[in-house]
């Protein structure tokens, strides 16, 4: 079934940026903050990684720069949204618009430059010999392994099996309760807004360094917005987040594969496919569960997007 192999093989690097950004945003939202500015963060990460990547041969350095840029953007957002407690929707949108603008401005004129550091696939022996999936899953670049292998496991462990994760989840569900027992609500929210954005920046970096291996205005093309949707789709669970990202990437790859194999489906229909499939996958369980069942809505952290004031009653 080389079709599956083909699809998976291209899907993984295609969706790594979304996997990283969505994982980061999931952490952020678990702490109770909503960052609508992901598109801006990913764009900034992408352009800064590109700029560094046209000047050095070390992809990890470019990746690091992209991550740090994302963290800085996240810290700026967190200062406004968490410390000052400004309206999160507005602040996030400001980051989305301003971040994309700034990123495009920084990259404008450099479009043709040659990217001299890229992420190349690293084959894992033995595992890559598994029929069907081996070639697809185990011949990818290191960032892919991290995003789909290491990261979800680490997040799952921290969130559900450590004291810190327990406190984090409480902050998102009921910050008053967490505050009452001495958890530093603002500190947690600030930290995770920054960490989440750092991951999103890394996602943007990989988009350029490991997938398109190029940069242009609009190279990000909605990855940030899609990440937001994936977090909701995955009900804020680490494994479902990367699964959702992968599903998305697979549908996108299906499009490319279909074109390559001359399936005679209009490219536009194929481009719609990932979104349609995601939509259907959200609607079917909700419909089957019957009336009155609160799917997805109740899985949201209880205090999402509501700023916390200790002395609010």
């Amino acid at each position: 079934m080389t079709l599956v192999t083909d699809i998976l093989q291209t899907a993984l690097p295609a969706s790594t940026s979304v996997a990283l950004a969505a994982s980061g945003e999931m952490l952020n939202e678990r702490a109770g903050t909503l960052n609508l500015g992901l598109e801006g963060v990913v764009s900034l990460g992408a352009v800064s990684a590109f700029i560094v990547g046209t000047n050095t041969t070390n992809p990890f350095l470019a990746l690091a720069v992209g991550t740090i840029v994302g963290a800085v953007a996240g810290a700026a957002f967190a200062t406004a949204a968490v410390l000052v407690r400004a309206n999160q929707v507005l602040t996030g949108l400001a980051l989305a618009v301003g971040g994309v603008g700034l990123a495009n401005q920084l990259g404008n004129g450099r479009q043709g430059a040659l990217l001299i550091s890229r992420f190349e696939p690293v084959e894992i022996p033995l595992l890559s010999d598994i029929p069907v999936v081996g070639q697809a899953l185990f011949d990818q670049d290191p960032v892919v392994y991290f995003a789909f292998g290491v990261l979800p496991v680490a997040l799952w462990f921290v969130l559900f099996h450590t004291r810190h994760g327990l406190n984090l989840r409480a902050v998102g569900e009921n910050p008053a309760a967490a505050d009452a027992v001495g958890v530093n609500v603002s500190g947690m929210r600030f930290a995770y807004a920054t960490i989440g954005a750092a991951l999103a920046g890394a996602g943007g970096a990989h988009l350029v360094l490991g997938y398109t291996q190029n940069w242009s205005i609009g190279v990000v093309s909605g990855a940030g917005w899609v990440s937001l949707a994936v977090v909701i789709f995955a009900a804020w669970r680490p494994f479902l987040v990367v699964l959702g990202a992968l599903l998305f990437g697979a549908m996108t790859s299906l499009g490319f594969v279909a074109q390559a194999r001359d399936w005679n489906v209009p490219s536009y229909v194929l481009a719609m496919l990932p979104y349609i499939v995601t939509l259907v996958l959200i609607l079917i369980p909700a419909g089957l569960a019957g009336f009155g069942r609160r799917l997805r809505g109740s899985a949201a952290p209880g205090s999402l997007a509501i700023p916390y004031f200790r002395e609010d009653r």
Partner: protein
Amino acid sequence: MRSRRTSSTGPSRVCPASKADPGEAGAACRAVPGVVARNISKSFDGVPALVDVDLELLRGEVHALLGENGAGKTTLSNILAGIYRADGGRLEVDGVERQFHSPAQAIASGIGMVHQHFKLVAPMTVAENIHLGWEATPRRIKRRALVERTAGLIDQFGLRVDPEAKVWQLSVGEQQRVEILRVLARGATTLILDEPTAVLTTAEAGDLFNVMRSLTAAGRTVVFISHKLNEVLEIGDRITVLRNGHHVVTCDAAGVTARQLARMMTGEERELSVEHRDTSANLPVLELRGVTARSARGLIALHDVDLVVRRGEILGVAGVSGNGQSELAEVLTGLRPVDGGEVVVSGQRLTHAGSRRFADAGVGNIPEDRIGTGLVRSAPVLDNAILRHYRSPELSGRVALKRRATVEFARRLVEKARVRTPSLHSMTSILSGGNQQRLIVHREALVATSAFVAMHPSRGLDVHAAQDVQAALLDAREKGCAILLVSDDLDEVLLMSDRIAVMYEGRVVGVFDRRDADREQLGLLMGGHDAPLTGEGTERR
């Protein structure tokens, strides 16, 4: 205003051990101050909440903090617990001066507070909630380990609750136990309970008192904030009364009566009894005939219930919460669908009608969660005032609202209800809780032209507000309304009702005239035991 202060030292009455364990005397008897607060002042946005208040808590005592809404009890406690910072005054714990900048610091000094509105994370388990934000929690957590540690705490303090249950599944009383456990686990030696019995049944309150006694016997201090005079006298060793942010008196519980306390709390005398009416000959207004209905979770909550409420009477429905009373009230106000039987209001069949038709039939409704269900806090006072009447021809046409008429209506309502608001267009959330309650009660009184359904009407309210509600209900009775009063506070039921019905497991298990009602007998029926029936006994209507 200088306050009268009664000396708080004295003979063995103050002695902590004497109440819990009369045998212990002598050595352990020297009253030891634990937390001492002097000259505490606090203002919010220029408005004083506490003025020069003193509080001295002794080790091993239950100290009751009594006062009306706005008296400053919760503010004072929040200062002790590190949630607020005092503007002036000093605080000493075990002789050392302290300033708390956060609840964590207060806990570190041994002061822990259980709030009126619980601060628990609903989707998490009891064990997880207990271990939140606690340094003693192991870094790596295994579900088993947390559950075992929690079980250990449960045994140690005798507060029974299932460690693996999710908080949202627990009853209110059980949730409260989790809150208390959490504070005790962190080593609190001074426990502040803010209106703990407001949401408990009589039986659960009794359990709580036992817990409090065992805590003080072990040398801890419990601060019991309340406005319920009977309970304060029952469980308190000493009582401090606050009024309008000022300290009025601190005295021994032994030497004071409920009447005196009430006077000190409010500054005025209070009537404590309600005249009974014989309504057996009156026309029925609200009727349930063989009604069966399900609860929100889908289980049968009402089994074939027959009930009649007559003109000009108050029918009190007694029973432990959760035996179908909520569903009963909802069925009578159009908020719950009926599976079988009939609901009749003034002769009209309204079995499948919505809340609109019930309101049109003149049935007023004070819901269980008054503010959460009956008010839109983010809306102007005007919008809330017309919430139940806006469809009437007086206030609107087919499409448009009649602006001037609505403003006039709201103005009259606000005046009648004595609601203090800067303007009719102010957001309702800036009103005090008491003003919000009054708005709801009087608005519903306007709706109630033929009947009034009131669910736990004075739960969580202070003396003044509770009186207000009772006055509104009595007023409605005067006008010939049929009133259904549901309450798990047996005192309230016995005070207000002309007839009393008892509910158990979705059935009406007895209906009595108030004069024939016996506390003990009612208690038995509420607990599901058959009791010899007297008076109207066998009659099921």
